[in-house]
């Protein structure tokens, strides 16, 4: 699958990692909802690290759309909260 780390690069990541990524994502959302900032950062960083570790960067002229888009790595806790309440980083 193709994963984009927003504001950075796209990676081709083995499909086997989808389940783990999804787990981390769900846990990150739960952490934000629980107001646990430290836990959120830890999970979110792990998510990005997993993509970087297992993924291969796509070439600049590669035209594939992403299956998954992970928010920018410098996402703040406040932004994450907005994200999950539907406001989103990208204005509608």
């Amino acid at each position, binding site marked *: 699958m193709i994963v984009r780390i*927003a504001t950075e690069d796209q990676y081709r990541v083995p499909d086997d990692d989808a389940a783990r*990524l999804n787990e981390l994502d769900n846990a990150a*959302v739960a952490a934000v909802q629980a107001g646990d900032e430290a836990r959120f950062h830890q999970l979110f960083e792990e998510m990005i690290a997993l993509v970087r570790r297992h993924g291969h960067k796509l070439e*600049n002229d590669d*035209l594939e759309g*992403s299956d998954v888009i992970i928010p920018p790595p410098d996402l703040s806790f406040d932004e994450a909260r907005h994200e999950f309440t539907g406001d989103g*980083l*990208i204005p509608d």
Partner: protein
Amino acid sequence: MSTVIKAKINKMLDKAEDPSETLEYSYAKQMELLQNVKKGVADVVTAKKRLQLQQQKLEQQVVKLDTQARQALAAGREDLARTALERKQFAQTELQSLDQQVSELEAQQQQLIDKEQKLRGKLEQFRTKKEVIKAQYSAAEAQVKISEAATGVGEEMADVGLAMQRAVDKTEGMRARANAMEELEAAGAFDDNLTLTAGQDDIDRQLAQLTSSSVVDDDLEKLKRELGQGSPASAPALEEGTPSEQPQEGQR
């Protein structure tokens, strides 16, 4: 995939609004975006230059305060020397924070340049691919294939937009901090004339004093040793303003 990720996909693609049409019929929008990225880079560069100017000012301030501390001590005014060293300490702390901000801006600048190049690469690739697809497939198939390719470009466009927005937001934040510092400077926090503000002991300064006093004590001791203190009579007068070639260890 859950909320974090999925919401983003939809939003990014919504934002890119039928990219195949955009790309097929209008390059204007792409060019506009590339222009915006260039402007974003220029904004970051401007902000960086401004912070660097401030760095220079503070560096001069550090040297000046150090000289003043020496002169004050030589003249037997330990109280003034202490005040000068406190300010020097404060200026050095500010300098550290500026260093960090400048390198953050540099990273942002580089990121935007990379993104612009990436987008250019994708646009070029799209143009080529589009022609190939048109030549090789039936109209209906070509439409689908071109749409697929355009999704990748559209997503990249949206992502460049996002990267730029974030860089500009951060730059604004730093600009605000830089402004605040200039105001502080104008208000005399970094006043050259020690005697003018020597008596202004506000809470902030006392707090800063608590954290920096040990450093200041050390600095003071060092200066005393250097000046062979204990014989203030032989020390030069304040007015002489000896431009010091003080040792820089432990400083910037």
